């Protein structure tokens, strides 16, 4: 049903899949996500839609091999079929009307940030992309960002790619450079690890710039049925899968979100190691 038509390794742990899913391709909008199951009885894994081709009926996703679930997904190759693929889920990002936007992506979060940059570029917005990676070996989508942005700021923790430092440094410098000018940012969009998003929000807040973040809590159904994706936003419970995944960064309780994401940390680690060992034995 959901055939993998293309599989591309972007860096040692990040992979791009193009999947045949005509219904999803017809409806997908930037910021929405899908949930897939690799095999029957696999976990339901959520991934942001990284691109779609309604004519070909295909949808692109990018995943990072971080746990047992993605390790298992990575066993599938071009020509194989996924057991399930449902979407588009969640609310699309609100991009209309934005003129000067900073898109901040951290690590694998860049895979989610890129389609937004691309879409905004298409809408003729002035896009400044700020991407951060631990080191140059982990960089993904460099060319794509380059093409979709008026300005592309590269940051790495160890200085092997672009400037050394966190994305917050790049962002703050750029905000200062544009301060009082016509091209000052009317919005910052941040996607990446929770701690990064929290820090980006702090910078944006300092300069009074609205900041949207894209949350990725643990999910099961993705339709509002289980409530396991709930977050505290402005003191109220919100379900990321139906009310999000985008939220006003000023309102999100990042600490509680970070905590909830560690709910199954030990279990995940054991499963992942088991998975790795099985693969080694198989080889």
């Amino acid at each position: 049903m959901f055939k993998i038509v293309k599989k591309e390794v972007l860096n040692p742990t990040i992979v791009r899949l193009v999947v045949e899913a005509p219904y999803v391709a017809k409806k997908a909008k930037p910021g929405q996500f899908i949930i897939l199951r690799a095999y029957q009885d696999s976990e339901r894994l959520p991934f942001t839609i990284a691109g779609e081709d309604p004519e070909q009926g295909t949808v692109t996703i990018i995943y990072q091999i971080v746990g047992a679930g993605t390790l298992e997904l990575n066993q599938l190759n071009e020509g194989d079929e996924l057991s399930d693929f449902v979407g588009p889920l969640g609310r699309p990002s609100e991009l209309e009307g934005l003129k000067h936007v900073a898109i901040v992506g951290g690590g694998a979060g860049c895979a989610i940030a890129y389609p937004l940059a691309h879409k905004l570029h298409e809408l003729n917005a002035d896009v400044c992309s700020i991407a951060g990676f631990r080191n140059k070996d982990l960089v993904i989508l460099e060319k794509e960002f380059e093409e979709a942005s008026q300005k592309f700021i590269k940051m790495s923790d160890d200085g092997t790619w672009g400037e050394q430092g966190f994305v917050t440094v790049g962002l703050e410098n750029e905000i200062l450079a544009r301060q009082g000018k016509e091209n000052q940012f009317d919005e910052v969009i941040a996607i990446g690890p929770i701690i990064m998003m929290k820090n980006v929000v702090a910078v944006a807040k300092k300069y009074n710039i609205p900041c949207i973040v894209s949350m990725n809590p643990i999910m099961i159904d993705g339709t509002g049925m289980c409530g396991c994706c709930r977050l505290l936003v402005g003191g109220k419970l919100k379900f990321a899968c139906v009310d999000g995944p985008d939220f006003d960064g000023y309102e999100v309780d990042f600490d509680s979100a970070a905590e909830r994401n560690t709910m199954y940390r030990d279990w995940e680690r054991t499963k992942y190691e088991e998975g790795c060992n099985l693969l080694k034995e198989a080889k």
Partner: protein
Amino acid sequence: MAFNMRPTKNPMPTQAPEIRKHNFDEVAIGYTQEMAIDEAKRCLNCKNPGCVPGCPVHINIPAFIAKVAEGEFEAAYQIISESSSLPAVCGRVCPQETQCEEHCIRALQKLPKKDENGAMIKDENGKPVMVQGEAVGIGRLERFVADYHREHAAVAVPEIQKNGHKVAVLGSGPSGLACAYDLAKWGYDVTIFEALHVAGGVLMYGIPEFRLPKAIVQNEIEGLKRMGVKIMTNMVVGRVISIDELMEQEGFEACFVGTGAGLPRFLGIPGENAKGVYSANEFLTRVNLMKAYQNDSSTPIQHAHNVIVVGGGNVAMDALRTPLRLGAEHVTCVYRRSKEELPARKEEIEHAEEEGVVFDLLRNPVKILEDRTGSPSPRSPEYNPNYGNVIGMKVQKQKLGEPDASGRRRPIPVTVEEDPDAIYTIPCDCVIIAIGTSPNPLIKDTTPGIETNKHGCLIVNEENNETTKDGVFAGGDAVTGAATVILAMGAGRKAAKSIHEYIQAK
């Protein structure tokens, strides 16, 4: 035929509580043929039976029971299936004690008590000791008949004359399955659109294996497929495709919306986002649909020691009994009214008690307490892997006041002035919230012309289950809010009839 005048029901053979609380196998084992015939003979075959009007779908109860008494089990099945399309399910999960069995004449009679030899037992004054009769075990007989049919009848591939009309059914819970069944039988080309990766709705993701084996649900679904019903999973209507698109572009002449009431409510108290706090839907979905009870499952679940479940309905009973089977030592039900008001089926409450569930009644949660000792960081020497986990729940005692709108007595908080111990803490490492669900707003939000009431339930014409949108019908929990399998099934069948009339009149 001689009636059996024993006042009591044949007990249902079950797995012993000590054993069953450690496994996910079905609790009830089912009647043998002998037990079923014996029980069936307790039915008086009333001229004006009380049971039939008590049944939401008016199964001809005395007729099917008479067939059981004669040992004609397949004939009994045929009588039930005139009115019900899911007897194996309903025989297991229906609240018979408030439906058919509540009105059974045998439950209203007092009869003399007899000893093992059939001799009347008398009191010291020489008067016979009388006992309150029990209803005929209608539910147990229904279950027996359905199981007999599944195990003995040849798999039939029905010959159906197709009529060429296309109908879409949204949701594959009992309402959707029942609607699809009737429409397919009448020749319609039916497609079920289901949001999840398997069909069955709450029967698959909510009600646990030990109460309703999933193989039974899948057997019903296979039967539908044999009738030519197409089932498309992974189709969240409203996101993947809209009702308007189904009707305008995909050629469906009518739609049935049976999308249930799947949106869980939370308490809105501090600490509800702590690790170890689940909605019942999440906990049960992980265990049932995602099979977290199997050791090699790819879905994690917390194996808690000390679990509190908030709520007192069927969902709460399932949420209480499931963690026991995952190894929990203490499981406590916190409910804000008293035992009389517990909305769950009586049998489930009894089963839960037998398995060691503690009922802490007239208590209302006020706060969930979290572990804030040590550090959340694995790199810190003070690392505490349980940082942010639930460690307890603060509850407040309640007393009962006047009946409220629901007719049940309203809980009123006991103040600390009235009782210095009115607020106290129950330790726990997991909280499951089972205080109800409401319909998901997705269908309403994505379908112009569909209206809902203030609870988010779809508004329908009670005569024919048509919504406020032409050609769109609805039924089950999506219309009533969380209710029962039998009501959902009945609504699905009623809507099928209306859809049939609607299309034939076009």
